[in-house]
């Protein structure tokens, strides 16, 4: 066990090193001079010169990487040139928002996706199956931003039930927080639900036709017990893997949804930073999400190791 853990942990260091080079390198491919953009509309040459020296833009690339990586190792991710705030503070500010949105979205996705998947598998080739399939097709083909704006128009402008956009911390006002999160979370969850529904359906169909399910039915078990207890458990394994992957993607920010609903999460932060060429923010946030991804992966591996006796050898 310990050996396995050490082995897995040892791969993290080179992976992160590689990731950091990739993040830094790709950023340099962005066209446009960051100093020119950050200098604002007046393009004052002294401001541009100051920014070039602050950002080490005239130094060779490896040296600039060394400056940045050196700071990162000391826990300093740099500072946003646009708003003069440390990147770490920005990450701490946005992380709870992104986490909350991702959690609610994935819960909605699981509730809708798995339920619809089971229903369509159990009631194969019936009205319910077709309805669930149409729903999945709709969820996959509806653009997030369009659905978002339509929901705002219906629930906020016409019905007046929910706030149109914005974010309030749950510690400030839980009710308002949930009210402002439910629409963006639904928009995000809806698309994922469609994918989960399709996977649940096919996994369930496979499991429902297997021998042990036939045996369970032959024993005279209640159909509900057969479906939910015997079949679903096995069918859920690929669905959970998929759900975890989708959750990881959500953590790196949902750009369009955050933009439409003005949710101040990672997605909005990165997009604004890219357009403003605020390199430190882009690098810091991407490095953070990449690290989180790698850590989640490691945790998954450890969990798999604990669950699956064959791996323990």
């Amino acid at each position, binding site marked *: 066990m310990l050996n396995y853990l050490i082995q897995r942990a040892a791969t993290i260091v080179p992976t992160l090193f590689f990731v950091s080079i990739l993040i830094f390198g790709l950023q340099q491919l962005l066209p446009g001079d960051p100093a020119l953009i950050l200098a604002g*509309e*007046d393009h*004052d040459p*002294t401001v541009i010169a100051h920014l070039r020296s602050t950002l080490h833009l005239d130094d060779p690339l490896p040296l600039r990487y060394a400056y940045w990586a050196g700071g990162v190792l000391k826990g300093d991710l740099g500072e946003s040139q646009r*708003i003069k705030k440390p990147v770490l503070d920005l990450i701490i500010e946005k992380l709870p928002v992104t986490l909350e949105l991702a959690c609610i979205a994935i819960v909605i996705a699981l509730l809708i996706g798995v339920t619809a998947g089971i229903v369509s598998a159990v009631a194969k080739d019936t009205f319910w199956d077709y309805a669930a399939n149409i729903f999945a097709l709709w969820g996959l083909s509806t653009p997030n931003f369009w659905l978002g704006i339509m929901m705002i128009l219906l629930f*906020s*402008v016409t019905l007046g039930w929910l706030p149109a956009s*914005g974010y309030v911390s749950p510690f400030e006002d839980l009710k308002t927080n949930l009210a402002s999160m439910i629409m963006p979370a639904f928009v995000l969850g809806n698309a994922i639900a469609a994918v989960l529904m399709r996977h649940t359906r096919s996994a369930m169909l496979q499991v429902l036709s297997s021998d042990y399910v036939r045996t369970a039915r032959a024993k005279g078990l209640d159909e509900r017990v057969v479906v939910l207890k015997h079949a679903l458990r096995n069918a859920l394994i690929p669905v959970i893997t998929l759900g975890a992957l989708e959750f990881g993607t959500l953590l790196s920010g949902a750009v369009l949804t955050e933009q*439409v609903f003005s949710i101040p999460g990672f997605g909005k932060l990165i997009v604004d930073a890219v357009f403003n060429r605020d390199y430190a923010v882009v690098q810091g946030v991407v490095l953070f999400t990449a690290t989180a991804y790698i850590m989640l992966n490691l945790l998954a591996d450890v969990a798999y190791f604990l669950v699956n006796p064959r791996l323990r050898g």
Partner: protein
Amino acid sequence: MRLKSLLLFLGIPVFAVIAANVCAQTLRFGLAEDPDVLDPTLARTFVGRVVFAALCDKLFDIDDKLNIVPQLATGYEWSADSKALTIKLRPGVTFHDGEKFDAAAAKFNIERHKTMAGSNRRGELAPVASVDVVDPMTVRLNLSAPFAPLLAQLADRAGMMVSPKAAQEAGDKFGVKPICSGPFRFVERIAQDRIVLERYPNYWNKADIYLEKVIYLPIVDATVRLANLKSGQLDFIERMAPSDVAALKSDSRFKVSKITEIGYQGITINVGKSDLAQKNPLGKDAKVREAFELALDRDGIVQVVTEGEAAVGNQWVAPDNTYYAKNMPIPKRDVAKAKALLAEAGVPNPTFTLMTPTTSDTQKIAQVVQAMVKDAGFDVKIQSTEFSTSLDMADKGQYEAYVLAWSGRADPDGNIFSFAACKQPLNYSGFCKQEVDDLLTKSRTTLDPAERRKTYEQIAAILLKDRPDIYLFHRHWLWAYTTKLTGLRTIPDGLVRVQGLKLN
């Protein structure tokens, strides 16, 4: 009702409308972008100035006719040689940290603008050589040469006064928690989410302040911003989409205000920025540029691009501006003459690439222009380029023509000097003529408005014939707000003054 039951059935919690738990005099203000750093010395965006209008008072302000009016100053006097400006300061003004505003503070601020690393105000105050404290409530700005736009600069960020004590303590982090002397003081900022300001009880002009709080919420999408206004989450939105004006006007709950901007929309032509200028007929030959302008129908452009929500123009200031050169009126579309000019120039079908940022307005301009000038024989290729990249390409001269907007400054100098004087930072066209340089310098050093007007007429006569920039129109600032809001003043700089605003 059926819809509600369906939602409940699906298990989605539906919440009743969120009662605004904010007090009645809180103005919720929808911004079109997230402002940059809230430090007047370092700030560089238009949207930041919207917030500063409530947060930081300036020595002077402008009124709806672009006249300079006192704010933290009570009066001013130019010396006989126009090389010193003596400013009387308003007594009884304090900063949000309780510090007193006086001549020493004013001197500190001007010097901070001039010397702080990365200051965006240095260029604006370049002619200010030194600042003297004449007495506790009087400062004198000594200039290296007379500088007519100085008062207008002091009516913008260069004239904003911050607490010297707070500025010294915070250094370049001042913008994280700015301390100024405006009607509202800073409470908190969550980047890309909100900026909260509360009423400053010791404001010098507190009788004119009725709001308790102002919350600025950046909402980038114009449709969502409008939806927030309609659903009651916002009281005011700036920069609404022209296409929404008609529908909102018929809604009795809201009002729409509009005012012509002090900036402009236009097309910059590379006439000397790089080798490319001589490689295409548009950059090479002024006759081709004249034909290009004659092929344009500005009214048509305004109609298609802004649904009529803009004023047509052909100069760096709008036709109703006092410095508009009346000797150079807006030319009418004349395709026959354009064709004749092209034939004369020996290029009946000139081809060039028009670079445009990817915003929908600028792309629309490019498309309409492309279609219009085709009638005269032009073959325009549109190159849509992400804004930051396009700016970089323009700066390097890697373009032939470029659709560009300028947010505008109160003094005409701010709309023309940096664009037309040789080697200036915003001179993307690469235009450079000693004669124009001399006139531009003269327009800066002459304080008499009538004299300046004459100089600008001379500049226009050269520049609008040579056409390194072709000005198209001046957008309307479109504001929409609840009818409960009263006391709104429309100032052409597009910034909302909070003085006098009341929510009934």
